[in-house]
Structure formats: structure tokens, C-alpha cells
């Protein structure tokens, strides 16, 4: 059955009310109802990370998170990180290291790295590799990603 409920969302410090199926994944609410398109649909299975957003400080996969569970929580997308004039240190490092190729996965890598480094920027190579191992990049930009995350970790330490 099609049921719609009014759900209040806070995304990038803006408040929104949306009327949607509460079981619908948060990703579709962010992209289609709010018009915030940084998070991407990659798999709908929480296997690739392209849809990653930060909810109350934790990186989550918005493609499998019901929109109802975001009610009353603080959601951050890549749009909420930095601006061209003042990018987040992780974005700055990703630009300096010229990371993306197709770039479709990049929001997920950036958001997961932000959540990781904001919790603890004192991470070594092996910890970074382990922490990011559930993300996919098909273009094979991993070498640049690892360089960028290490650079960002230094900047945020």
C-alpha cells in the first residue's frame, strides 16, 4: 500500500518537511524531494557507498536507510561540507590530489573520510585502507584517494 507521512528532516542545517512513504530510503528524499544531488544512487544495497551521508556524526548509507529514521537527526551531505572558496580539508586534499575520474563515487569517499577523520585524524595507512574498504571506485582512483586522505588527516590533526 502507498502510505505517505509528513516527515521533518534537517539536512545541512536546513529544515524541511516532506510528505513521503516512510519506508522510502533517505537517498530519494534528499535527491528528489530536497533537490540535493551530491549523494548518488549506486547500488541500493549498501554495498558501494556512493550514497553516503553523515547522520549525527556517523557515515551511513542513505540508499538503505528509511527516511523515517532520519527524523529529528542531523544529516550532512557533501553540499554541507565546504564551499569553493572554503572547501573542507578533505575536499581540499581531494582537489589537490586530483582524485576523481568519473567522480560518481567521490561524494561517498569524501563523506566517509570526513566521518573517519573528524572522529580521529591520527590514522595510519593500514587503518585508512581498512576504514575505507567497503567503498567502491570503478575508475581505480584508489592511489589518489589514499594520498588525499593521508594529506587531509595531516591537515586535520
Amino acid at each position: 500500500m502507498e502510505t505517505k507521512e509528513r516527515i521533518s528532516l534537517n539536512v545541512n542545517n536546513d529544515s524541511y518537511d516532506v510528505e513521503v512513504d516512510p519506508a522510502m530510503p533517505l537517498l530519494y528524499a534528499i535527491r528528489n524531494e530536497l533537490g540535493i544531488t551530491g549523494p548518488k544512487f549506486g547500488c541500493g544495497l549498501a554495498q558501494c557507498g556512493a550514497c553516503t551521508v553523515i547522520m549525527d556524526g556517523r557515515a551511513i548509507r542513505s540508499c538503505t536507510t528509511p527516511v523515517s529514521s532520519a527524523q529529528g537527526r542531523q544529516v550532512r551531505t557533501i553540499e554541507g561540507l565546504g564551499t569553493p572558496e572554503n572547501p573542507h580539508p578533505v575536499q581540499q586534499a581531494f582537489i589537490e590530489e586530483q582524485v576523481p575520474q568519473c567522480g560518481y563515487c567521490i561524494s561517498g569517499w569524501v563523506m566517509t573520510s570526513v566521518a573517519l577523520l573528524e572522529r580521529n585524524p591520527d590514522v595510519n595507512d593500514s587503518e585508512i585502507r581498512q576504514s575505507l574498504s567497503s567503498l567502491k571506485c570503478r575508475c581505480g582512483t584508489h592511489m589518489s584517494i589514499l594520498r588525499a586522505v593521508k594529506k587531509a588527516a595531516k591537515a586535520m590533526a
Partner: protein
Amino acid sequence: MTKQANFTITRRQLIKSSGALVVTCGLPNSLVAQTSNGPSSSKPPLSPDQLDSYVHIGADGKVTAFFGKMDMGQGVDTAIAQIVADELDVPFEHVEVLMSDTAYTVDQGGGSGSTGIRSGARPLRNAAAEARRILINWASESLDVPIKDLQVIDGIIQAKNNPSKNISYGELIGGRYFNVNMDWNGNYGNSLNAKGAANPKTPDQYKIVGQPIPRLDVPGKVLAQTPYVTDVKIDGMWHGRVIRPPVAGAKPTGYDQKSIDDLSDVQVIQIKDFIGVVAKDEWNAIRAASQLKVSWEKVQSPFPEMDDLYNHIRRTPHVAERAGGGFGRPEPGTLGASGSIADAETKVDKVLAGAAKVVEAEYEHPFQSHACMGPACAVVDANPDQTTVWTGSQKSHKTREGVARILDMPVDKVRGIWVPGPGSYGRNDAGDAAMDAALLSKAIGKPVRIQGMRHEGHGWDPKGPASVINVKAGLDANNQVIGYCFNAKGFSAWDIRSTEADPSDSLAGLLTGWPKKTRHNYGTPSESYKFPNKLEFWRTIPPFLETASPLRTAHFRDPQGPQVHFASESFVDELATVTGQDPVEFRLQYLTDPRDISVVKAAAKEAGWESRTSPKREQQNNGLRTGRGMAYASRGGTTVAMVAEVEVNPTSGQVWAKRFVVAHDCGLIINPDGLKRTIEGNIIQALSRALREEVKFDRNNVTSVDWQTYPIAQTTDIPEAIDIVLINRPEIDPTGAGEPSTRQVAAAIANAIFDATGARLRRVPFTPERVKEALA
């Protein structure tokens, strides 16, 4: 909430405001102004013989380059901007590149075979040079200074001895048009070229070409300001999903409307064997596609057991064959150049019968999926007067042709706009999405956005073809090669073509009555070993299913390069072992092309290659075994050698390619930074294909339908280092880099595993199970 599409390109507005938008291709020359005495205010028709089709200079002096190819993050657009800026003598920052919008670019073939710079840059370079020549002529008249006494600095033409006597490009042409003809070679696609009266600069005059300029597209992608095709939103747009059969090849016999009665604003669309749903809301489209009860005809299981794949290839009679590769023929007078391949093979076999020793091996390569980061997406606004398609396809000009055909419209009433998609490594699922969206949009008379679900991206994208490659060679008593035969047998690389220009090359076309046209093509090695009595040929077998199939085969990055060179470069290593030689020395003994020789030497030197035979058979204290492997191959004028250093865990079977050393020669280097990252990407993707990737299927369908059933490389698989030696050859026109460093990777790893363990892996991927099995 609805939002207008936010992909408006300011350049487009600029052009619209300064002249009429006319979309016409290939007007006869007689209809186009032949000469120019000054700029014109109206834009000449878009045609390859018009200077204005490639370069536009605004009133502010900013330059727009119109590029009929695209870039998917390998820096081609940045390289084009460098080339155009250098020819025009304008700052790099003043050049923008507009790619693959059919309303503004001529058909240069789209993304294709690493030709973005090799072929695609030529007409742009020529056009920029011609624009500069004309502007200097005009400036000479306007300033009353002879041409020889003028110079251009940052887009300002000035008297050499009196810089205050000057005029800018912007003042001379200022948003108007050159209206000047160029000498077009009459070709469309990769071979399109056009030249004006001006000669482009010589490499010694370059200031911007060769510089490691940061890529134009990077900040937008990292700051989430780059709209992707998935982000295109058009007023009144509905969302579509196509429903694929559970058994490949089955046709829908009906559906139960009641199964989706609970969903509002949803419609089922069936056109012959094509069945899909559209909904006002994307979530409802997804729900409808999964809820809709479709009945399918009972068909025989179309596929063999997967375990039987390689035997199926071996025993199935071939339907096409060719010596010398897909695009070339053997040199006259060599084996296979004339007569039948069977006769040529008999000749080699006679040589081998007299050999002191015969070495023979077979190499197996599975189907592989593009497995792009997102399932393909397209938006089509089908309208009898003017249809627009937003596509991530590499070849938007061809997408436009295919959409026009499937909608039965004149091609000039269709506009194809390329927008970055979720990955692009050849003929992926993007072309299918565009055709699906076109049918659905026409059916409901509204713009339709379609994006498949993950299982469609993996399950139904065109695949890289599976093959079995047999290589044999004869050695004389002195261990010299006296005969060599390379025989690739597999599925065609052109089961569907690399474009969707013909609807029969798309799923939607095949499902709506466009007859399948399998063409046959495979490949042979691209190397310069001089073996006497050398024969190289391919043979192809028919597809399992002569209709819309999840195992359709088509171009996937470096088409057949990985398969072919996994075999040829593994075999060369096997010959080195049998003859008791160091693998690098063995290669150097037979290589003939000086550029090939120099990359092999450069890679070995940088890697600190120690001369010895393989295997090494030394175990580390931690139980790990380490080894090194070399592989080399060329592609389209680019030559690459690499050394892989691996760590093999004999207990778990895990292989870690810890370091690569690459020597890369693609002629003149346009941007060394972009080039290095392109090479890194090729190596990681190829490493993933070598170690992990295999499309699985059962008797009914493809069963690799997500990232768990089709794993790819992850951060824990990534090397510690990829050390790259770039060999710059300014005297040689730039060739490609988007694929050429892909084809060596599987063999380099296999050769390194052999060096480490003495076990020879002859089937891709080298999964832990297979490595353990080989070590047992």
C-alpha cells in the same frame, strides 16, 4: 519540490544571445560562405568544414572549444584546452571546452579507443591555429602594422616594437563568428580532420602543452557542483524502469495490472517484447517495477553450465576468423597474409614438428562487466518536433542517431547532450538506458528519466567477451624460437557494436523487432617480437542467445587487450623459463621496435630488475612468497612495459600486487600529471579484473548482479606504489593513454606469481581458491 535542471551552461547562453542556434550537419560546401573579410554576426551552420564549429571567441576574449568527444575524468578536455590555448596564445584559464552536445559539436566519434587526443585534438589544434592566423591578419589591417611585426601575448595582438599599439581578440571578433571554411577530409568520427591555411605550432613553441595543469573537472566533482546525467531534472519528468526477464530471452506474455493497483500515478508500458513502468515519482517507479507481476513465456535455458564455458568455446565451430587482428592484416609474405588460416596453421605445425622442443599453453578469460558505479541513466524528452536526450553514453552523436531511428524521427530533430554518467569504459549500459527512456517518453508523451537498479547494471550491461587462447611455439636445439602460433577463440567483441546508432545494438531495439546483426571481431597481440614462422589469428563463435541477452558482448576498456595480452605475455614468460633465460632478456632478444625496447629497458631499470630465471622459490620469514613479473604491449602507437611485484600468501591464496613500475611512451606528452593518474587508474582497474572479476551465470541468467556477486578491487588490494616513468617524445604526435596500460597487467601479475611460487595461473581471475589450487 521541483527544481529546474541546473546544468545550464553559460557558454550556451552566450552563444544563443549572440547568434541564431542552427543545428545542421554536413551542408554542401556551396551553401557555406567560402571566404571571410571579417567577422559575421550570425553563426554558420554546424559543419566540420567551418572554423566556428571548433572555436568561438567571446567579447571578453574568452575562448570556447567545441569538442565532439568527451572526457570521463582522464583529463582529455583539459588537454584540449591546453592545446587550444597554446595555438591561440591565450592564457589556459581563458579556454573552456564544451563536449559532445550535438547542437554545438561535430561528430568526432565520441569517447573511442583512446583517441581523444590522438585524433580528437587535431581539428581543434588546426582550428585554433587558423583562428590566430585570421585574427593577426585583421589586426594587421586595423593597426596598420605588417603581420611580421606583430606578436600575440595573452590574446592581445601588439606591435613588437610598440606594445601600446595593440588590439585584443575580443575587440577583433567579440562574440561574432569567423565564417571561414576549413579543408575538411570528409570524414566523421575518429578520423574527422579539418585544416585551415595556418600551420599549427611545432612542439618547441609550446608553453602550455606539456605542463602539469590541474584538471578542469576536478573541483566541480569534489565540491558537488558537477551535474551528472542522474541529476538532470526536467519539468513534468516521469521516472521509468524496465523489467527484464528471469530467464534470458523469455518474452512477456502478459502482466497483472492489479499487482500495482495500490500505487498512484503509475503506468505499465508494453511495446512488443519490451515491458516497463513509468511513474510520476521515482520511488513508485521502483516499487512498481518490483511489484508488477509479469508472466513470461517458457523458454529453454539459454546458457550452458558455467563450468562448461571454456569447453563450450573450444568445441563450438567458429563462424568467423581472421589473421592479424581485428583491424589489421599480416604483412604481405608472412603467414596468414594470404590463403586460409588452416593452411597457415598447417605450415606452422610442420615447423613445430621439426622442433627440438614444442611449448604450448592455453589461457582462459571470463566474461567481465563494465560494472559502472551506478546503473546507467538517461533522460529523454521525446517530442515529434524536437527530441532531446541527456545521456552518459560516450558517443552522444550516435545515441542521437539511435534515438532518432527508434522513434522514427529525422536525426536533425534530435539533440543529444552528453552529461557525465556513472562511469564509462566503452559500450556500457548507457546506450541501452537512452533507448529505453526514448521508448517510454514517446509512449507517455512526457519526459522520462530512467536509471536501472544495481542488478540491471551488472546483470544486463554488455560484457567483455570470454575466450580461450592457445599459444604454441617451437624451439630449436639452441633454444631459439623457430615457429609461433597464437590462436584466440571466443565470443565476438562486436556481438553488439560499440555504439547504439543502430537500435538493433540496444536491448530496447532487440525487444521491439529490430533484427540482431552480430558482427565478428576479436584481436591478436600488439607487439614487435620477431619470431620466424609467426602466425596470429582469432576465431569467434556465435553468442549463446541471438536476441536481447545479458551476455551480449561489446567493447569494454581496451577491447580484448586484457584477454589477448594475458595470453601472449604469459606465454613469452613461459618461453623464457623453458629456455632458461631471464624474462626481460628473452624479450629483448626478440623485440624489434626501438620504442618497445626502450620501455622494456626503462621499466626494468626503474624496478631494479635483477637478471635471473624464474621462479625464485624463496620463502620470506613470514611465510609469504614474493616475486616480480614483466609484461609489455603496445596499443595504437603507445607502448608500455610494466613490472609487477607481488606478495603471495600460500596458505590463504591471497595475492597482493604490492608495487608496479611502468614505463609509458605515448609520443608527445600534453599533461604529465593527468597522464600519470590515467595510468594509475588503468592499472587499478586492470588489477581488479585480473584478481577478482568474473561474470557468473547459471543456465538461465547472469548471476553476478551486485558487488558481492561481482567483487572488484577495494582499498586493501591497492598497491603501495605505482612508479611511473614517462618517456616524452615531442617529435612523435601524441597517441592515446586511456587504455594502453591496461593490457599488460594480468600477465605482469601472473608472471610475478610464477616467479614467487613456481605456479602458473592460466585462468583469470586469480582468485585465492585458484591460487591455492595451483600451489597444491
